């Protein structure tokens, strides 16, 4: 029983850390955010093509590194530390697991090598325009219309859709519920009937779009696996995505703690560092308690992906809810403990604060995740809304 990084994993972490410190310096992050698709092309080429990181958790048979979710989490943590803008999360953590779990072997062979090699920028279109969570929140619909499959409706909050060359779209058959009737489709963004509407979001470090589907024709081979059979695979893919997101949130929370601690040591008021006042010290201590717990939760969830499939759904929900709460708490406290400068545009604090909020809502809010956990505690039914 060994719940710690191996030497190889430590090397990956150190390499990723150096890369992210260089590509994700505060100046470069701001420049990337201002650029046309919200990320730096050279950085993305480095991630995807030079480092081959999109394939880190993909099997060697499709050109991946054959490593696992722990290594993926290590990368996500380091990128989260600096808010590195890039389609990496969308491609490697959202779209790739969906393809790997729902696609037939031939489809995996057709799609995953380009992802592993950094040639594909993919994303997952999942929730409706209200952002409702889980499979119940799937926005788009798939119908049979005179023998052909047609995709209609819209998906909200699709990350990096404006830069994608591949959309993985979650759909359900009209009237279906839960895990039934769900399909996953691969759609080209420039296909007839697809409209990508970029949104201006509070968190500018991770661009999102609304994607409209106007009776898009879907050939049979664009359906991953069998029609209306992708529900369980999508649920598993979302648990994996949740684990990766938790690691990213951990990185952001740790950065907030680190930056704020350094500030507390340096900032002098009343002839002493503000970090010598117990109110400040104790708040930072509470942030550390939360982030250490977040570290345990995020990496256990990653281990569950690789080693403990029976525990994955619960571990992912635990990591998701805890790391979301930790990130929003730490980022909020970063603003508070920086005083007035923490409230300015020029300081990094608001970037973390906004990313914390957006990621907490991306795959199900903490409260929603807790209710999913409550449902497994044999508590009986919740009160029906009146």
């Amino acid at each position, binding site marked *: *029983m060994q*719940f710690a*990084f191996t030497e190889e994993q430590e090397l990956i972490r150190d390499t990723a850390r150096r890369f992210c410190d260089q590509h994700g310096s505060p100046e470069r992050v701001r420049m990337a955010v201002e650029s046309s698709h919200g990320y730096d092309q050279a950085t993305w080429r480095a991630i995807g093509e030079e480092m081959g990181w999109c394939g880190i958790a993909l099997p060697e048979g499709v050109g991946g590194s054959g490593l696992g979710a722990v290594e993926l989490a290590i990368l996500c943590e380091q990128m989260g530390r600096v808010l590195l803008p890039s389609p990496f999360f969308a491609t490697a953590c959202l779209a790739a697991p969906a393809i790997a779990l729902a696609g037939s072997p031939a489809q995996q062979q057709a799609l995953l090598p380009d992802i592993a090699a950094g040639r594909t920028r993919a994303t997952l279109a999942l929730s409706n325009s209200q952002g409702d969570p889980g499979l119940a929140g799937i926005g788009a619909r798939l119908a049979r219309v005179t023998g052909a499959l047609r995709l209609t409706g819209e998906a909200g909050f699709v990350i990096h859709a404006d830069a994608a060359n591949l959309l993985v779209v979650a759909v359900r058959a009209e009237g279906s519920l839960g895990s039934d009737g769900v399909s996953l489709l691969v759609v080209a963004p420039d296909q007839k009937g697809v409209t990508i509407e970029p949104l201006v979001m509070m968190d500018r470090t991770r661009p999102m779009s609304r994607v409209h589907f106007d009776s898009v024709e879907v050939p049979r081979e664009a359906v991953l696996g069998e029609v209306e059979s992708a529900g369980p695979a999508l649920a598993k893919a979302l648990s994996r995505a949740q684990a990766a997101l938790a690691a990213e949130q951990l990185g952001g929370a740790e950065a907030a703690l680190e930056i704020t601690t350094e500030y507390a040591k340096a900032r002098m008021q009343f002839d002493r560092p503000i970090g010598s006042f*117990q109110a400040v010290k104790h708040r930072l201590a509470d942030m550390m308690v939360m982030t250490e717990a977040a570290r*345990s939760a995020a990496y256990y969830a990653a281990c569950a992906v690789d*080693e403990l499939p029976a525990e994955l759904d619960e571990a992912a929900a635990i990591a998701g809810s805890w790391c979301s709460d930790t990130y929003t708490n730490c980022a909020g406290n970063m603003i508070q403990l920086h005083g007035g400068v923490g409230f300015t545009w020029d300081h990094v604090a608001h970037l973390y604060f906004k990313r914390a909020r957006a990621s907490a809502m991306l795959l199900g809010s903490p409260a929603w995740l807790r*209710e999913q*956990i*409550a449902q497994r*505690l044999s508590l009986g039914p919740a009160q029906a809304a009146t």
Partner: protein
Amino acid sequence: MKLGFTPAQERFRTEAAAWLSTQLDDHYSKLRGVTSLTAQPELRREWEQALGRARWSAVGWPAEYGGRDATLAEQVIFAEEYARAQAPARLGHLGVELIGPTILQFGTDAQKRRFLPPIAAGEEYWCQGYSEPNAGSDLSNVRTRARLAQGPNGDEWIIDGQKTWTSLAQFADWVFLVCRTAVGSKGRDGLSFLLVPMQQPGVTLHPIRQMTGDIEFNELFFDGARTAAENIVGAPGEGWKIAMALLNFERGVSTLAQQMSFRGELERLCALAARNGAARDPLIRQRLAQAHIGLRIMRYSALRMLTNAESAQLGRAAFTYKIFWATWHRKLGELAMDIQGPAGEIAEAAPYRFNELTNLYLYTRADTIYGGTNQIQRNLIAERALGLPKEPRGR
């Protein structure tokens, strides 16, 4: 990272579980689920001796002192099975988990031979002489003093002073004592770590009743109490170092056992909430889910700490462990009362006995105080883990 156990470890688990369930189904069935440290002392003493005879009392110790040379993983496994079987709280826990490992690490060979086997056999019991009325969070302010003098049987320490909050002193044969041996010294310097027999005229006990109604701890008065000169762990003046090292052992393997008993408490609370309808309330559901989350995270963190403990690389997680579980447990007590409603306030037996969940509410108010208050924990985290400035002392 590797989270599973090996086949050999799983066999160890089966062996431990089988022994425990045989004992607890049969002669010791009255002890199943007993969490109070003061209940049924005679039967508890028998239980400690039964554990000792079967070498399950101190599995991590060397065999020559009554242990099994168990690896860390095996110690974890035994602790899990112990809790899973709802085996009773250990009367001998101060000996097995605190002073025993301390003597193993810092004691002389003679001390190991003298003190370890009787602990493992359940024949000698220990209590802790640390806190004083003026030395709680500020433990270095101890005033109990000891001086060397010639006695009828050789050199002895003569001890005068007072200790407080001494759990289980009424059952103890020995007390381990932090006291001042360098005359005129202040603070952490000039302290020594002595081992003192309890049954002597110079040691008297005064029980202290807790808000729970129970008497679990005591004041200890030392008035010319004596112990042989060789009953010192480490050198004179090293008392602070030894005392702190002992406290580190509190963060060891027993932490995983603790989570198993927490799991039982939460399960029974969930069952009650389902039965009495409290679980239909969305806020109660959120809090129960959060309790489950916290418990799982405690397990993950403990696995991290135990992994790093083996490689002597105690990371930041160790600093946060106590405040995390204590705060969690206190919140669980509050949730237990919210779920029970006013009915939880009714005593279930004379004179002042409450059900398990209500007891939880009262007992857990101490969890965030003993073993370092939450406020002290935050200071330690801020200063030692984050490197923030230390608290100023008064002048």
